[in-house]
């Protein structure tokens, strides 16, 4: 694997391998602590995302490597109008691997076309964010133990939620998956996502506007935020927003071993009272993000 731009750049086998390495890192961290000695990760964040950047940097530091980079475009040459290609041509001389976040869709692909060192897409606008999807997959694997046969509910903004689309693309490669798509009419999964990743693979799915009627069927519940700015008028937003907030009451009929995920940051779509429920996995999920990034860096630097 040279670059990671889109989650589908990885085969299901490669993802299994990364998950196995991440699990091994959690069990034997000392074995990995010098693996990237003398290696440098550049984090090029043309738009700020402290959470993702720190996750990458912590991952590299725990592998014994070092990090350099910038955390917003204003402090980089991009502010002076330098192209992505030129920035990469220069930074490629300083680093062994690059994690890049950029507000423009496709910028990491442009970087990959120019780069002599591996590029990891750390988010390109509303387009792709493959390491979030890897994090989601590791969490599901650790919490459920398997992928095959899971019924996965997605709830909230399924139209603009890129993490939803990528996770659907990745999960659709496993056997006997079923999807339950819970969203307001206005924020349904786009038809091209359904055509490419659900219908073409004959995966059964149901679409509904109400979480209450389906909660008992779910093995995994992936929550996303319903944002005010996605609605044409305030009335619709106010009418709908509370139906997509997860509360302990809504969880009454859910399975004992349901796994609740959220890409974070959360605003109010999961009541804080749910945090103490053993089914809430979203804080663990954030922690797992570092380990899957460690596994990814090892694999891309071929030091694993």
């Amino acid at each position, binding site marked *: 694997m040279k670059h990671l731009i889109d989650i589908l750049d990885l085969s299901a086998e490669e993802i299994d391998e990364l998950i196995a390495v991440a699990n091994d890192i959690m069990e034997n961290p000392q074995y990995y602590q010098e693996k990237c000695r003398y290696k440098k990760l550049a984090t090029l964040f043309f738009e700020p995302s402290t959470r993702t950047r720190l996750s990458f940097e912590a991952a590299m530091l725990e592998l014994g490597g070092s990090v350099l980079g910038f955390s917003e475009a204003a402090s980089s040459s991009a502010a002076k109008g330098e*192209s*992505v*290609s030129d920035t990469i041509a220069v930074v490629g001389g300083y680093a062994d691997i690059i994690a890049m976040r*950029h*507000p*423009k*869709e*496709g*910028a990491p*692909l*442009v970087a990959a076309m120019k780069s002599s060192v591996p590029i990891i897409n750390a988010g*390109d*606008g*509303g*387009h792709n964010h493959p390491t979030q999807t890897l994090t989601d997959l590791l969490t599901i694997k650790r919490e459920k133990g398997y992928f095959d046969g899971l019924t996965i509910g997605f709830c909230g903004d399924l139209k603009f939620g890129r993490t939803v689309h990528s996770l659907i693309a990745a999960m659709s490669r496993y056997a006997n998956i079923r999807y339950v798509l819970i969203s307001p009419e206005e924020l349904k999964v786009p038809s*091209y996502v359904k*055509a*490419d990743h659900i219908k*073409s693979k004959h995966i059964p799915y149901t679409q509904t506007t109400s979480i209450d009627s389906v909660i008992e069927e779910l093995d995994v519940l992936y929550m996303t935020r319903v944002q005010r700015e996605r609605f044409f008028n305030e009335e619709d937003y106010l009418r709908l927003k509370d139906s997509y907030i997860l509360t302990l009451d809504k969880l009454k009929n859910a399975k004992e071993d349901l796994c609740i995920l959220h890409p974070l940051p959360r605003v109010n779509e999961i009541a804080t009272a749910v945090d103490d429920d053993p089914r809430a996995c979203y804080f663990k999920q954030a922690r797992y993000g570092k380990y899957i990034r460690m596994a990814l860096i090892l694999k891309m630097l071929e030091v694993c």
Partner: protein
Amino acid sequence: MKIDSITNGIVIDHITAGKAMQIYHMLNLDALDCSVALLRNVPSEKMGKKDIIKIDEEIDINLDVLGYINPNITVDIIKNGVVAEKKHLALPKELHNILKCKNPRCITTTEQDIQHIFRLSPSAGVYRCIYCDTKAAD
């Protein structure tokens, strides 16, 4: 130029009626010095009406443009007044620098010296920008 008889040149035939102007621009035929005839709404048994373009010189044309617009278009190369070669068209797998992405959030709108590439997505038969996955607009 007698538009019925070209001695050496190219005849682009079976163009969907109304599409000739788009092809004229996309192939940059306005930059040619030779005669170019653009026939619109020509009666056709098969198509009802069709457009035809005749170019009075043998130039290199980008067949991907024609394949993208409609793979049923025919291209005849005329030499010494007879059809010397028929080019076969297909839906191209990739379009290089033929279309521009319309998504304002796409990196192609700001990055200099970038190749504009669209790839045919096999399931839906549509072209998508390789950078942002936005569908090509007609």
